[in-house]
Each structure stands twice: as C-alpha cells, then as structure tokens.
C-alpha cells in the first residue's frame, strides 16, 4: 500500500494550473456518458424521433386529421398519393398520424415523468432524511393517494375542471410520484446513517444543502433506472385513459391510441399496428439504454 502518490503521477510542481482545475460529478458523468456507445446511439435516435415528431408533420402533404375523401379506406403505401406509409381505415395519412401521436406521447411521457420525478424525489428525500413526524405525515399521505383508484381520480378531476390536456399530466404525475417517493425514501434511510452524512452535518451543512449535495446524487442511480421504467408506463397509461375517453380525443391521437386502433385491424392492415409500434418500441428501447448509460455514468466507481 502506497500512502503517498503513485509513482506514475508527476510531482506537484510539474503540473500547470489547468491540470488541477476542479471538475464536478456532472462534468465527469457527461464525459463517461459520451464514451458509452449504446447510450450515445440511443440519444441520437431519441433526438431524431423527437425532431421528426415536432417538425415532421409540417413537411408532409397531409395533416393528421385530414381525411383523403377520394380514398376513404385503407390505402396501401403510395408515393403518388403522398401517403408514404398508407392510410388508416378512414383514409387518414398514417405517417402524419404517427408523427403527431409522437408529439403527444413524448410530451406526456416526459412531462408527467418529470413531474413525478420532481415531486417524488423531493418528498422521498425530505421524508427519509427528516424522519419522525414529517416522515409519518408524508408517508401516510402517500398511502392515502395509493388507495384512490386512478380512473376514479381522473373522472373527478375531469368533472371539476373540464376536459383538459394539462389535467392528464396532473393525473398521471400525481399517481407516478408515489412509488418514486417510496423508493427515494428507502434509499435515503440507508444513506442517512452513513458516516459521510454525519461528516456533512459536522462541517456545517444545512438540511437543504445536505439533501442537494449528498442525498440526491447518491440516490440518482436507482432513480434513473426507475425513470426509464416509468416513461413507458406513463405512455401506456395515457393510451388507457384515452381509451376510456378521458385522455386525448379524436381526431387527436397518440402512439397508445394508434396501437390500440391498429391492434383491432391487425388482420386486415397490419401496418396500422406496426408503424406506431416500431416508433414506440424504438423510443422505449433507447430510453432503457440511455437510463443504463446514465446510471453507470453517475457512478464514479464505474469508470
């Protein structure tokens, strides 16, 4: 065991001021993420899907809600009619609908998950770190929320506030943060009694700074894996709500809705299922790879 520097490290005097510039965990994590090929590829594919979902519909000849009155039936892919992937059973352009559905699904997936992430991590970390009465209060509230059936909750929201796209984020987010809070709380409890937390208190850290500097970075690994599992859940939940008539309404659409419709017509026109399914699976796959990459990147032991 060498207590002093390893021999291959040059003596301090030879190192310029640039070499000792401090780096943060985030800078290190970004560098490590960029070295992970699967994660970078996923990031690029996700970026492309998002780009085409946002800007693609403007470049197409048909809009998502436009019915091709000359062909009110499932048209196979045709360049002449500018239905590059054909149409659905009522003559709407499938590519336009899939790209537009991507907007809805990605927005719901990302926004609802961010809401869940933010509330869940805050509540979980505060609850676990402070303990005692605060913990009891917050966790009993989580129990209470768990016991409310989702559809019932959404229907009440709809009745109170009317049908609204934003409500969907609220409804889904309000359900998804519960598990997140539980997970973060559990992790925080195990962290709380580690010696470095005591060291942080002894060196004058306030509760907020300890939570931000020590608790959150140390629970991130688990949280990120859970987030990559939550996004698909949220996207599917949205299609379930839409199916019940509580989510997006015709002619608006989302991947979940398209897959539902496509499954019904699987025997006649399999592409109405395959096209949205390919987009959604690609997204979910990429999210999983990206999640794994992020988890590894944020763990300094895994250089």
């Amino acid at each position, binding site marked *: 065991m060498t*207590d002093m*520097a390893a021999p291959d*490290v040059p003596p301090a005097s030879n*190192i310029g001021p640039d070499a000792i510039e*401090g780096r943060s965990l985030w800078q290190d994590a970004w560098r490590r993420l960029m070295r992970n090929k699967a994660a970078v590829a996923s990031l690029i594919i996700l970026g492309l899907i998002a780009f085409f979902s946002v800007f693609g519909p403007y470049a197409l000849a048909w809009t998502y809600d436009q019915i091709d009155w000359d062909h009110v039936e499932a048209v196979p892919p045709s360049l002449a009619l500018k239905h590059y992937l054909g149409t659905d059973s009522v003559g709407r352009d499938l590519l336009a609908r899939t790209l537009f559905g991507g907007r809805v699904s990605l927005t719901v997936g990302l926004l609802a998950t961010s809401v869940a992430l933010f509330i869940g991590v805050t509540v979980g970390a505060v609850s676990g770190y402070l303990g005692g009465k605060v913990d009891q209060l917050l966790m009993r509230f989580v129990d209470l929320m768990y016991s409310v059936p989702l559809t019932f909750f959404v229907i009440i929201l709809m009745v109170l506030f009317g049908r609204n796209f934003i409500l969907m984020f609220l409804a889904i987010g309000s359900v998804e943060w519960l598990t997140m809070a539980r997970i973060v709380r559990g992790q925080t409890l195990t962290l709380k009694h580690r010696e470095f937390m005591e*060291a942080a208190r*002894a*060196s004058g850290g*306030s509760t907020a700074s300890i939570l931000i500097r020590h608790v959150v970075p140390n629970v991130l690994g688990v949280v990120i894996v859970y987030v990559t599992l939550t996004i698909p859940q949220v996207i599917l939940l949205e299609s379930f709500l839409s199916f019940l008539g509580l989510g997006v309404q015709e002619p608006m659409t989302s991947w979940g809705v398209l897959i539902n419709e496509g499954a019904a017509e699987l025997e006649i026109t399999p592409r109405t299922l395959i096209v949205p399914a390919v987009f959604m699976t690609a997204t979910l796959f990429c999210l999983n790879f990206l999640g794994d990459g992020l988890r590894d990147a944020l763990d*300094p032991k895994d250089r």
Partner: protein
Amino acid sequence: MTAPLLQVKDLKVHFPVRTGGVVIGRYQALRAVDGVSFDLAPGETLGIVGESGCGKTTLGRAVLQLLPVTSGAVTWLGQEMTGLGAAAVKAAREHMQIVFQDPLASLDPRMTAGDIIAEPLRNYHPELSRAEVTRRVGELMEQVGLLPAMVNRYPHEFSGGQCQRIGIARAMILKPKLVICDEPVSALDVSVRAQVVNLLKDLQKTFGLAMLFISHDLAVVRHISDRVLVLYLGKAMELATRESLYQAPRHPYTRALMSAVPIPDPVKERAKPRIILAGDLPSPLDPPSGCVFRTRCPKATAVCAAKEPVRETSAHGHDVWCHHWRE
C-alpha cells in the same frame, strides 16, 4: 493556566432503548455517557481511552452536538452549547471539526476529493470565489501530504491512509480551534498509522489547535496526548497528565489496561505481570450499583457496591474515581 477552550461538566448521554416484547415493550435508558467532566485548554491534546462500548465515540459526538445531550453542560469558549438553536450550533461548529474512524465511509462516494475538502469552506464562507477555494484546497492538500493534482479523484481511488488525509484536510480547512479525532488511525495499517499520527501532531503545531483524541490504542494516545482520560462504561475512571498516568496509574482499571499493552521485547513481555479482568463488560442498560467497575475489579469491597466513588485529586492534578486508589 489560560481560560479553557472547552468545558464539559457532568455530561450525560442516554439513548432510549426498547426492551422486552414487541407489543408490551418499554423504553430503558442506555447510559452511553454518564456524568463525564473535563476541561480542555487551547492547543492541548486530551486522549480518551477505554474499551469498546465505553462511550468514547458518543462523548466526541456529544461535544459537537451531533447527538442530543441528556443532561450536563458543554461550554465552548464560555458559551453554553446545549440547548442552543441550530444556527448558533452551526456557528460554533465552525471552530470545532471532527475526523472520523472509517476513512472511506466518511467521504461521500460521489464527490471528488477537492469538493469534499472544500465543503466546510463553502458552507461557512459562500462568499469566497471559486479560485480562492481552489487555492486553499490545493494548499491544504499539500500540507496533509496529498498531491494537489488529485482533486478530481473520487474516494474509492485512494488508499485508506490517503482517504484519512482527505478527512483530516476537510477538518482543517476552516482552521478550527478544536478537532475531535474519533479513532482516526484504528482502521489504518500500522505502517500508515504512524504517518497519520505524526501528520496530526504537525498540523496541531502549525494551526495551534486543541484535540480530543479518542482511541483504544494506548501507545498512540501516549504518543500524542498531553492529558489522558480513562473511561469505563460511560464514566470517568482516571484523568491525569500523560506522564503521571503512564508511569503511575492509580485506578485498578487503568492498571489492567496498561498491563495489557505488549512490550516489544519477548523476555520482558513474558516476565511482565498481567492483570486479567474477569468477566464481561456489564450492560450499560443496567450498570452495577456504586462503582461501575466493581464487578470486574480485583480490589472491590463492600463499599464499592454501596457508594459511587467521587473525584479524588492527588498530587500533580491526578484525578481518580476509586475508593481504593491509595492501596
């Protein structure tokens, strides 16, 4: 003698422990520290020794107010610390820092060495510029024997001794007046132990700080301390200057401890009389009546069970808590 930096008076730390069944359990007090008093002068080192579970670590934490104090007083620079608000405790902690036993566990695995050392500075002096923080961290890293180029490394990339140096640097960056060393070398290799102890001595000289040096290693305590406090089951047994305690231990417990220290000479070691203590450490949930040491004391008599010994001071300020120390 100058005014004491730290005064601890009749300090008691009891933990509520649930005993008995799950349903009809009751809470009992675990007396981790039970009425300990001492003073600490600026620049002085007080060694605290005792076997496992005697309350050494709890005492250190209680002085820092990291643990709730049951009763007694901790006076820091004339100011009573117990019962102070969070802000006042935080302000006082700027001048009292701690070095932990487990070097790796006391460092956040997701922070770089530089960030760890800089943390107290950021907490207490957020007004300092980034360059200034970097400069001070680099300076201190050199002082504790780390290369400033190592700022970007994570704790798991260091050896145990280097981790402890980071822990020491973190405790020193605020230039505190008191550093509590909670068994800082127990987890280290023997070869590294001496380096770290000498580093602590050097830093003490440079910064003029007082230390509470908690350890179960009598040789290390002898090397570093000015005075030594012997604890047993949360109570003080003997408090004396290093020379007085090591040359003429008065308390039977201290004598037993001393006789257990190996001498690096096989002939003398074999010839040396050993005082072997019978039995186990009694439970701090239910300590013996009178003198807590009487159940294992070779000199125990009826008076030991009946009456708790009080502090008796002999020549040279040698304090001992025993009915029979004169024998």
